[in-house]
């Protein structure tokens, strides 16, 4: 697969993963671009041991985790549902709430739920994160419960 095809195919998915991690449009954009810089540099070393998707998601999620070092860069903004602030990108408060709630989860949970919402198979998620499949399943279940709870609290169900 050519780099440009990969870039176009995976851009949306990687961007959303980063957005779920930081809940900041510009930072997510930076993180996603950085991910593809790494993909571009490492593409020759990709040896089909896993699917290209798993490989790219690993790079993206590791890059997100690495951003913890620069954490001060993205202090998450407080709930912007009614204060629309600079968030004119997404119109619907529900979408904003979802991304905000996800960005407030523990770091690895953010990665897990983002991958789940991207329709990545649980077996693949296990391979990306480094947990057992059973463990991933339990975690996804708990995270979804937590999200549902938060949506209820905000009256957005």
């Amino acid at each position, binding site marked *: 697969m050519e780099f440009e095809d990969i*870039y176009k195919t995976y851009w949306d998915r990687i961007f*959303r993963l980063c957005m779920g991690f930081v809940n900041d449009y510009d930072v997510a954009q930076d993180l996603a*671009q950085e991910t593809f*810089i790494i993909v571009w540099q490492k593409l020759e070393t990709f040896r089909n041991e896993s699917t290209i998707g798993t490989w790219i998601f690993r790079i993206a999620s590791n890059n997100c985790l690495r951003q913890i070092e620069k954490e001060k860069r993205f202090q998450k903004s407080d709930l912007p549902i009614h204060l629309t602030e600079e968030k004119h990108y997404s119109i619907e408060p529900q979408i904003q709430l979802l991304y905000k709630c996800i960005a407030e989860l523990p770091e690895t949970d953010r990665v897990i739920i983002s991958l789940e919402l991207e329709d990545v198979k649980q077996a693949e998620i296990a391979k990306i994160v480094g947990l057992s499949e059973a463990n991933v399943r339990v975690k996804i279940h708990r995270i979804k419960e937590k999200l549902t709870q938060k949506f209820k609290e905000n009256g957005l169900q």
Partner: protein
Amino acid sequence: MDYNNHIDFKDLWKRQSIKEPDMKDLMSRLHTFKKAGLRNVWILNVLLVVTSVFIVCIGVYYNPQFISTKIGILLTILAMVMYLFVYNKLLRNYKNISTTQTNQEYLQELLLIKKKQQFLQTKMIGYYFVVLTIGIGLYMYEYASRMSLLGLCLTYGLTLLWIGFNWFYLRPKQIKKQENKIDTLIAKFEEVNQQLQ
């Protein structure tokens, strides 16, 4: 879907608006990315290598007679080489962490590197100072021994004062600053790592 309680998270998730991928922007970033990473490494390396060469040149030019001078030169250079070696090795490790491994493996590696960095910034700086001080002390002895008593006291006094200032004032300050930063980071990485246990 049952635990979704009718909220279609997947649908919401995918409705996030996204800017088009921008190949041009990516390529320009790639360029700056490569440059920035190497600059700091080069500055420190060039600085210490130039200093070492300078010391060797002075040594050769004045043709020292005392063995203490030669040992001094050797120790001074050794201190810098030692520091550079560890610093470069650490940076290489840092740059080479495989981003294609699982999150768990990646976090563990990141943690290990941060701990090594902590060592470099605290203990290693100490060793560097001790070896450097002994080296400079020995190196100066031959030239100072030809001076008057006042000159000798002044030369050693000022040098030791300068080293003392670095050791007792600048070094602890630097270590404290770095430690705060790196300890918080190590704690954070450990916490994230714990999430995957």
